């Protein structure tokens, strides 16, 4: 199953740092986000289209069309604020 990681404000809001989720259908970032939004509450609000969050697949910046495979590490995080 893909591993999901959450960082910073989203980690705190979701109350989870890491979890494994079933491979979504379609097996893409878009499919995964739909599955997460279907949990409702903060998941639906924070991941709503238009909200500012980023997705990385295997530590590379991804977009909605990026494919997601069974052993992938997918990270969801807010816009970065380092430096």
């Amino acid at each position, binding site marked *: 199953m893909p591993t999901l990681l959450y*960082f*910073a404000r989203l980690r705190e809001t979701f109350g989870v740092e890491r979890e494994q989720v079933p491979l979504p259908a379609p097996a893409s970032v878009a499919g995964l986000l739909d599955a997460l939004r279907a949990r409702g509450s903060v998941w639906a609000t924070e991941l709503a289209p238009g909200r500012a969050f980023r997705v*990385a697949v295997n*530590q590379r910046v991804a977009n909605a069309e990026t494919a997601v495979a069974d052993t992938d590490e997918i990270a969801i995080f807010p816009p970065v*604020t*380092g*430096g």
Partner: protein
Amino acid sequence: MHPADSVRVQTAPFDIGDEHARIAALSHATGAIASFTGLMRDTNEGDAVRAMTLEHYPGMTEAALVEIVTDARKRWALQAVTVVHRVGTLLPGEAIVLVLTASAHRGEAFSACEFIMDYLKTRAPFWKKEETPAGSRWVDARASDDDAAARWIDDGVTD
């Protein structure tokens, strides 16, 4: 990564004098070293800030920094680059980030240093949480940082 370069994410403080000496000693062909140090300010958005915690994405953050340095080396002739970014809890006045760029001439050193900072601010996965009198809060990304990074994009190239 180029053997003269150093990219690190660490909780420990760094010493700019030591980092500068390392890069200056590498080659007597270096005529210019530019540096940038980001320091923790004691106010932000009008509020007092008494501490800050920096979070990162181990693995991806280091890879992003190496990629930014690699991009800079494609644009300018650089003899050495150092990027050090701290994570964990910092107090006002402490250094957060250091970028050093060494080149034969000053224009390239300056441009590369500013480029690396602009891209680091928008592409390297770090997040800041501030402790204010009203409680803790995550710092929001700045549109001005996106603007700063965007000016390095050549016309017609969207990399």
